């Protein structure tokens, strides 16, 4: 990989390090002049800066988290008592479908994308991602998809087939409202967004690492994100096929899942779960990545068994493609297939176990600081282990035929999703907040946040194990006393506990929101290296400048930043501090590069996404709209191609001197 030849030149013009990139008007080559005013709201709309996009991803995803959470609370309200009357059957079905879709596709994946976007370039010492405009396109497409999905609530009802939308129930006869059409299109567009995003990030990691950073010196977070992107690249096309087939059936009269024409409904299940199972690892691995940064930092020890953690992550990814049919144990695959998939599923517990053990051993012998970020990370390890072990109980196929489609499954996946992924993300919020916003989140509120969330989470989802084993099926808009059992600890009791728990959980989330509001008002700035951190993203100002690093770092170690601060005493083998993080950052600022070419803002990503949205609406509302959308897409693609990704030389604040330029991403 020869891109890493960005040689280091001594500082010539430190004046660059002022923050905002001011770009003067250019005689743009594009069809339209590129946006030049990069301040105010335009700064956000047309930006291609991976950090701004990261923040936008994060904000939007968090809003969807609240939306999905409120949907969940409505579900829990309905189920608190027998024969609930808060929601009708129809509304309830829409509610859990959209709850899951929102949480998975509009919260979890984009929130991971937010972290990936913001920190991946920083962790590998790059100035941006490989294709900044594609990055912006990903974001806007995701937003378009999310809006389409949720617009269905107001346009005749949301999708109501459950998040895996089994055929033929999702066909035009059985789901006559437009909800499923919106669902298909929303996911299709969000899927394109993820696909583009993942190609972008893979190329970034492969081509743009700082000099000296071999693959095995890459931070684990980056590694896990890389694995996730591979999973996405190879699994998204599969659901695309499924969605296209379903769309052809619903909108154009094809019969792919119409049994009367001889179709086989299991085709959908295979296509969905070939995507769906890798997808669950797409959800959890970023969480794993985050805590693989947090645990070492707060234990003051490197990650135990780094290569094992990395390879187990990769093998989880690979094996994850071979277990999909464990979601279909009851669908009549025949004993041979069931046995094979049952064994494969068990196998996946092994690499996952390796990770759990390595995290525990990372803390073993450490000097642990229980900050809020650390608490969430520890929470992840514990709750995920519980969820993972219940996962292993499903892997025993005969046993799963009793548990499948009961609350026991719901308990499993909320433990891994909420206890795993969401706790990982919250750990990331607390850990990286000072980096992104230059303000510390309040630790005390963080502690409240954590405790309410753990207690709420266990109260909400713990009883679901019992409910499931007592035989309460999932996806039921009411449960009935007739099947609730006798005694105090029957369905009624546990459902009530679960509902109360979900509200405690909501209060926990509320503490986070309060924390954010309070600390944003607080004028005090965060120290440059508040946690005594280990990786490169801390080797720059907080928040980082547009071009991330004043000087591209040269990497010698895993945990480069830490090793610049500490050295091992040869004789006693204890670590002694040789510099503070703040010192290091100041040294970088003093040695800033000149002539850093950053990609320029662009209208096209936004415009193209709007075009895609209109095009999608056309599938539902008729060809004329589709034509308008297609024209818009073509027009913006044309503008895009003709617009150079990097503004012309004169657009830079420091005109070219004779030093080499730090051009990034030549086309793209």
């Amino acid at each position, binding site marked *: 990989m020869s891109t890493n030849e960005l040689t280091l030149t001594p500082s010539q013009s430190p004046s660059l390090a002022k923050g905002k990139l001011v770009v003067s008007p250019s005689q743009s080559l594009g069809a339209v002049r590129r946006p030049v005013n990069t301040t105010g709201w335009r700064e956000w709309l047309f930006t291609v800066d991976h950090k701004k996009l990261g923040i936008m991803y994060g904000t939007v995803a968090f809003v969807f988290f609240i939306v999905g959470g409120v949907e969940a609370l409505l579900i829990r309200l309905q189920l608190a008592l027998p024969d609930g009357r808060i929601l009708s*059957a*129809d509304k309830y079905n829409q509610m859990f479908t959209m709850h899951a879709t929102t949480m998975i596709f509009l919260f979890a994946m984009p929130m991971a994308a937010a972290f990936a976007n913001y920190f991946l370039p920083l962790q590998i010492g790059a100035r941006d991602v490989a294709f900044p405009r594609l990055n912006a396109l990903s974001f806007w497409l995701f937003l378009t998809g999310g809006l389409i999905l949720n617009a269905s609530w107001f346009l005749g009802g949301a999708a109501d087939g459950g998040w895996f939308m089994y055929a033929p*129930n999702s066909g035009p006869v059985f789901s006559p409202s437009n909800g499923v059409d919106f669902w298909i299109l929303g996911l299709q567009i969000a899927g394109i967004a993820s696909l583009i995003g993942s190609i972008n990030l893979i190329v970034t990691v492969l081509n743009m690492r700082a000099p000296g950073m071999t693959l095995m010196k890459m931070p684990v977070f980056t590694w896990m994100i890389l694995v996730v992107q591979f999973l996405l690249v190879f699994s998204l096309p599969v659901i695309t096929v499924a969605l296209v087939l379903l769309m052809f059936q619903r909108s154009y009269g094809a019969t792919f899942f119409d049994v009367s024409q001889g179709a086989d409904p299991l085709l959908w299940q295979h296509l969905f779960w070939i995507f769906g199972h890798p997808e669950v690892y797409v959800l959890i691995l970023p969480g794993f990545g985050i805590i693989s940064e947090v645990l070492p930092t707060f234990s003051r020890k490197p990650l135990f068994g780094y290569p094992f953690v990395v390879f187990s992550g990769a093998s989880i990814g690979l094996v994850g493609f071979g277990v999909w049919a464990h979601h279909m144990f009851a669908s009549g695959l025949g004993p041979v297939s069931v046995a094979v998939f049952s*064994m494969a599923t068990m196998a996946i517990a092994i690499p996952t176990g390796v990770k759990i053990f390595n995290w525990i051993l990372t803390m073993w012998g450490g000097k*642990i600081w229980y900050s809020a970020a650390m608490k969430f990370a520890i929470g992840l390890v514990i709750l995920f282990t519980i969820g993972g072990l219940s996962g292993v109980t499903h892997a025993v196929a005969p046993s799963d035929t009793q548990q499948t*489609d009961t609350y026991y499954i719901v308990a499993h996946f909320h433990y891994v999703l909420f206890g795993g992924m969401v706790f990982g993300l919250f750990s990331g919020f607390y850990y990286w907040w000072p980096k992104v916003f230059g303000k510390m989140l309040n630790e005390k509120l963080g502690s409240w946040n954590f405790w309410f969330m753990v207690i709420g989470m266990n109260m909400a989802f713990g009883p679901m194990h019992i409910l499931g084993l007592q*035989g309460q099926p999932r996806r*039921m808009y009411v*449960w009935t006393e007739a099947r609730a059992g006798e005694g105090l600890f029957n369905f009624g009791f546990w459902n009530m506990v679960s509902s109360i728990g979900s509200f405690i959980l909501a209060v926990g989330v509320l503490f986070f929101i309060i924390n954010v509001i309070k600390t944003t008002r607080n004028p005090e700035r965060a120290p440059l290296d508040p946690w005594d951190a280990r990786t490169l993203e801390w080797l720059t100002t907080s928040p980082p400048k547009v071009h991330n690093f004043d000087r591209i770092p040269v990497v010698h170690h895993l945990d480069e930043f830490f090793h610049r601060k500490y050295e*091992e005493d040869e004789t006693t083998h204890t670590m002694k501090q040789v510099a503070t993080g703040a010192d290091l950052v100041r040294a970088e600022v003093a040695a800033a590069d000149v002539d850093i070419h950053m990609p320029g803002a662009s209208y096209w990503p936004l415009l193209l996404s709007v075009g895609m949205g209109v095009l999608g609406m056309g599938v539902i509302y008729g060809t004329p709209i589709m034509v308008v959308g297609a024209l818009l897409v073509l027009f913006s693609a044309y503008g895009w191609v003709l617009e150079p990704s990097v503004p012309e030389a004169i657009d830079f604040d420091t005109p070219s001197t004779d030093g080499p330029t730090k051009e990034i991403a030549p086309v793209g």
Partner: protein
Amino acid sequence: MDIVINVKSSSHRIRNSIATIFGIVVLAGCARNAPQDTWQPKGDNAQIINNLQWIVFPMAGVVGVLVLGFYAYTIYKYNDRGQPIPSQSHGKPVVEVILTIIPALILTVVGVFTFRGIFELAETEDTEMIINVTGQQWWWEYDYPAQDDQGITQPIISSGQLVIPVGTKVLLRETSRDVIHSYWIPALNGKKDAVPGRINLLRLQADKPGLFAGQCTEFCGLSHANMRMEAIALSKEDFAKWVSNQQKAYTAPADGTLAKEGEGVFLNQCIRCHQVNGLKKVDGTPAIAAPDENVYSGAAPNLSHLMSRNTFAGAKFDLLNKKCRKDVWGASPETIGVKYLSGVSESCLNATDLRAWLRNAPAMKPMYADPAKLEKSGGKYRGMPNLGLTETDIDKLVAYLLTLK
């Protein structure tokens, strides 16, 4: 069956094993007799599953306690008490390898048992009886094909409650007329989906006479939650009685009774969808239902022996009033046969729900029965529509239905 751990099915304290997963002690004896409890097998197939559960759940529990216990100790022990920054060691490969092999070994053991369980459950060679089970929105139909060794000389078609003889290996051949459903009687076996266009096999066997609850467990649209079923196991003699009752010829109500008028209403309104075997039109020709012209799935429950069942409309509602129903549910294995076979007498009838159903079925159970919204299904209902019957019609119909023993 040489798996050693074999637990008496009467134990209600099984959930303790889940509790170990949490690491908290859940109070013993929680929820007695939940009808769909997955840990109370009442027959061979469910027992095979239960034996596996008793391997994998304790395994998971023990692993969980060990791992999390060690973790708790770590969390406590290495709290920052001012110790120096530890040396930056990157791990020990030996430890890694050991920690990979141990779970692999555990899982191999579990895997072997699982493997055997899967094939044991798939066994169908020694089947003694076959029942075709068809799911549709939102009820189950049972079709007992003629089979001499069970005394079934002509096919029996029923709905809602599955009746089987005890100690008999019954094979369900499942399919569906519309979307995917899933058949689940937890006490007798795990789930098996009813997939349109396919026939899936599920074996049931009950050790003792009894009534077992079940529920459709694949999301099948609007009234999925209301798609329930029950299985009744009867002693072989009682089963034979049940069979002969189901094969009994139709007796028309006596002229001049309310029931006779009800038969008239039925011929006007209901025969479009519901078959009553042996019912004749006024002109003496057999009355044949044509549900396929009115209902999307192409079927409606056969009502020939409606009052031999205890429930209706996807087992969501009881045909028996509360008291009589409790009597059947609470019956001992010895008495349940008699109680079940006595069917629904007038004094036991749950007239409230039945009348409400006839008055306005979609109000009782969410269904697609609004004629204005049936564009996509070619004007056909999914479920039973509101027929706009008058109260007198309903009186007549109830009287008539009561004769369908």
